[in-house]
């Protein structure tokens, strides 16, 4: 909480990264959205114990990050924010499914443990893919791409306004937190006694601020419609990007590359 202002400014880093001009950034947003969706579908399609099979899919974020010149730190920050949700969902797997499926150095690994690990890997891959889409495209271009994919306006607006609301919420949180800590210098964090009133205050303040923003939008002709930037048509490089990644995902989904690699390295032929 101490660096809440920093967190507020860091929030915009993905938008700033989206301004870069690398080969990945130049790919048409429509192609990038489709590739990301296909990637997400492939990731969630894996068996709930298949950790090894998921491994080759790490190539996608690694390549996008290196070609797109995206630093890992902001990605890690996003993963840390998403992690508690997934841990909350899967934490009981090891307790509920105790069947031992394998032993490593005499330690039994339960099916529940395996499924929990697979869930964490899937979370890691999906969150990274979403963050990378944002960091290489930017929210406005994503919205424009959604529009050209004929996604209903209402969903696009929901996405854009929610994204903006996060920054409003964080900005107001920083102000309330600073006002509190300046008058409570000997306290560490916020006393639990005032949590209720502070959260209530925060909601009222963000509601007020969001209302003013909305008024500002209405004053400039906003009628719940997104008029985004015009995107170029898909070019040859975009089609190659789309087909290239789709082929890669299909190959790693249906051919167990880690096993083949293992077989190759150990020289064991069945």
């Amino acid at each position: 909480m101490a660096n809440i202002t920093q967190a507020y400014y860091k929030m915009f880093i993905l938008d700033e990264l989206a301004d870069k001009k690398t080969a990945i950034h130049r790919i048409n947003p429509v192609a990038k959205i489709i590739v990301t969706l296909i990637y997400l579908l492939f990731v969630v399609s894996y068996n709930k114990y298949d950790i090894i099979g998921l491994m080759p899919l790490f190539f996608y974020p690694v390549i996008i990050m290196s070609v797109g010149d995206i630093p890992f730190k902001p990605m890690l920050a996003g993963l840390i924010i998403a992690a508690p949700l997934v841990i909350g969902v899967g934490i009981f797997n090891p307790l509920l499914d105790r069947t031992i499926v394998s032993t490593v150095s005499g330690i039994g690994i339960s099916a529940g443990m395996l499924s929990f690990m697979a869930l964490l890997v899937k979370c890691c891959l999906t969150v990274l893919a979403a963050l990378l889409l944002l960091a290489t495209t930017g929210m406005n271009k994503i919205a424009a791409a959604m529009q050209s994919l004929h996604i209903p306006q209402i969903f696009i607006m929901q996405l854009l306004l929610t994204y903006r609301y996060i920054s409003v919420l964080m900005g107001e949180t920083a102000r309330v937190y600073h006002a509190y800590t300046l008058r409570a210098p000997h306290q560490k964090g916020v006393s639990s006694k005032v949590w209720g009133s502070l959260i209530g205050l925060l909601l009222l303040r963000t509601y007020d601020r969001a209302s003013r923003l909305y008024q500002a939008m209405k004053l400039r002709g906003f009628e719940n419609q997104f008029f985004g930037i015009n995107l170029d048509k898909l070019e040859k490089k975009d089609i190659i990007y789309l087909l290239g990644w789709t082929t890669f995902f299909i190959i790693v989904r249906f051919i167990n590359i880690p096993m083949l690699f293992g077989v190759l390295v150990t020289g064991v032929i069945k």
Partner: protein
Amino acid sequence: MSHHLVDFIDVGYSYLDGNKAVENLNARIHHGEAVAIVGANGAGKSTMLKLLVGILMPEQGEIRLGDLPVTKKTLSIVRQTVGFTFQDPEDQLFNITVYDDVAFGPRNYGLDEKEVEKRVVSALQRVGIEHLMHRAPYKLSGGEKRAVSIATVLSMEPNVLAMDEPTAALDPRSRRRLIKLLQGFEHTKLIATHDLDLVMELCSRTIVLKDGKIEYDGPTAEIMADSQLLEQCGLEQPLMLQGCPICRQKVIVRE
């Protein structure tokens, strides 16, 4: 249809708690006039401007822009005609770049991207911040944010500028730059402010509000010399008329 006149005709408005924000407002503002709206906190200055752009709707009376009444049906035209800047420019800037923020209005009015670009560049040039075009608004200084907020309304090419506390939280240099900028605008201007020195330099006419009612409507020079009336309305004479605290000499208002 003429949008050159702004008419407040017997306008009244109360807040939900029953508090009368403004009542019996009557004023006619002519084309090209620069009018200051002054008064103590809670006198109804911001309410008056919000009523003009239809953020609030009058409970009594009506507001007209020339032949056009301000109603829910006419809001689209009204808001194209009147550019409103908020007290806090942060409330007005919500896009990722300055360009997108300035382009937001023209895009909403369905202009093609070439025309949008033309308007954005022209608006940014007018306020002298073309170099900030690709910057993120949240990273700008207070003065720059204010300039961007003005550009966001200029890009819609309004006839009337309504500004709520335009010099609030600006440093002296940014304030001076803003005054010069506004002096160069030919628009009809309605400026709600506590900055009476700004009023002296910019507005030939002043409306003084007290408890939601118009207490004075006339030449700025006259009201600013009436320290008694100003005091009754919770105001003080502008610093430039209060005289030097050392030599007690009054400063002549510059042209």
